[in-house]
């Protein structure tokens, strides 16, 4: 597969390490009342969709950026690639 790195352009996916669902960016509040349940869902439950999937890739053999890749799990088509750090920052601001 080819991942169109937001900074570096098209790169072979073999340069990357995969980690899964991009919801891992949304780490729950450890102080929250339901922290135990929230962390269980965060760590273990997945939508695992047959279709578009936002997922985390690490450019291990590249610039060491974590990326959020939107990819179709039926066709492997990739529609969007973002720097995870930008996504994470945006999420924090929106909170």
């Amino acid at each position: 597969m080819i991942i169109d790195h937001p900074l570096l352009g098209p790169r072979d996916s073999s340069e990357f390490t995969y980690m899964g669902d991009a919801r891992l960016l949304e780490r729950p509040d450890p102080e929250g009342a339901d922290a135990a349940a929230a962390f269980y869902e965060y760590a273990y439950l997945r939508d695992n969709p047959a279709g578009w999937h936002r997922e985390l890739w690490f450019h291990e053999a590249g610039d060491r950026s974590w990326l959020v890749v939107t990819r179709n799990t039926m066709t492997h088509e990739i529609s969007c690639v973002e720097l995870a750090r930008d996504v994470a920052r945006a999420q924090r601001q929106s909170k």
Partner: protein
Amino acid sequence: MRYSGFRVIKEALTGHKGWTPAWRDPEPASQYDIVIVGGGGHGLATAHYLAKEFGQARVAVIEKGWIGGGNVGRNTTIIRSNYLLDANEPFYEFSLKLWEGLEQDINYNAMVSQRGILNLIHSDGQRDAFTRRGNAMILNGADADMLSTADIKKRYPFLNTDDARFPIKGGLAQHRGGTVRHDAVAWGYARSADSRGVDIIQNCEVTGFRIESGVCKGVETTRGFIGAGKVGCAVAGNSSRLMSLANMRLPIESHVLQAFVSEGLKPVLPGVITFGAGHFYCSQSDKGGLVFGGDIDGYNSYAQRGNLPAVEDVCEGAMAIFPMLGRARLLRMWGGIMDMSMDGSPIIDKTHIDGLYFNGGWCYGGFKATPASGFAFAHLLAKDAPHPTATAYRFDRFEKGLMIDEKGMGNQPNLH
């Protein structure tokens, strides 16, 4: 119709006119006691044991395509019970014992071949871990044997022991492990279940569950509603998709695992062998093809196909231990969908919805588990209690911190 050598000869002499379809092609009834969703190995085995061991006759297996078209028909046919953890080993050993009696049980020759499986060891740390595992196997009543490099060399003289980047320092063998003709498992269970009155309904896709006040009443399908006292789901590769119809999220990611077969070759590999310093395992089919595989591609996928890097990784492993394979040709590659669970172990459990049961999360270990999975699922469906060898395969183990993590990779499915 009973299969036998005499029958084969008789038919041969009378123009094969007597052979009848291996299973009927019935219309779905409106109501069953138990409906199994998924006409794969596990679903068909469940139906067989429900009928044969638990006296359940009003059973249907519904399959969206053709039976045996999923992972049971696209795997590397290996059976073994060389597990470490007490939550796993008794279950897989139970499965191996069922394999050992399968042909007589279902009157179908699935060619169970206990040619042995051998895990190569390349470091002291690995030997320590394999020793612990071998002991766990023996303490659970299975067989295990620690082989020296010399022993191994006798069986595999062409193994690369003189120029290996990661020298072979021995191997853990399970002589009762081996291979089975995968398609025949699905067909044999189907034929047996059918002969015991189970309806096998092909080309019938589940489009929803009918759930009324927390109770599952049956399934909506492309061939109409089918009522059921209990619904058991065994749809490896589609677990998350199917259970999402009941608004469930699972501790599962679906990944592609590629497998490979070479051109037909005169016999060279006596048994199943796995490389311990890379991703490669291999056996040779009775037709002569080398059947081999390695690691999953590593990303979520339902595409049933993989990419070159995983193929190359496997072939590099092949050449690392068997440099004589250089001129053997890879004939065909294919991809199956693996429902990778969060601890690498399966789930056989009730759901929070009454009457709805789940069997899945087999990662890439589903084939060898087929008989025990079917038996345990049948037990759960028939008695509403887990089979003694499958008590730990619960949904709530993650919330409670009771993971069954053979590899110690944690909640990252693609590492299991």
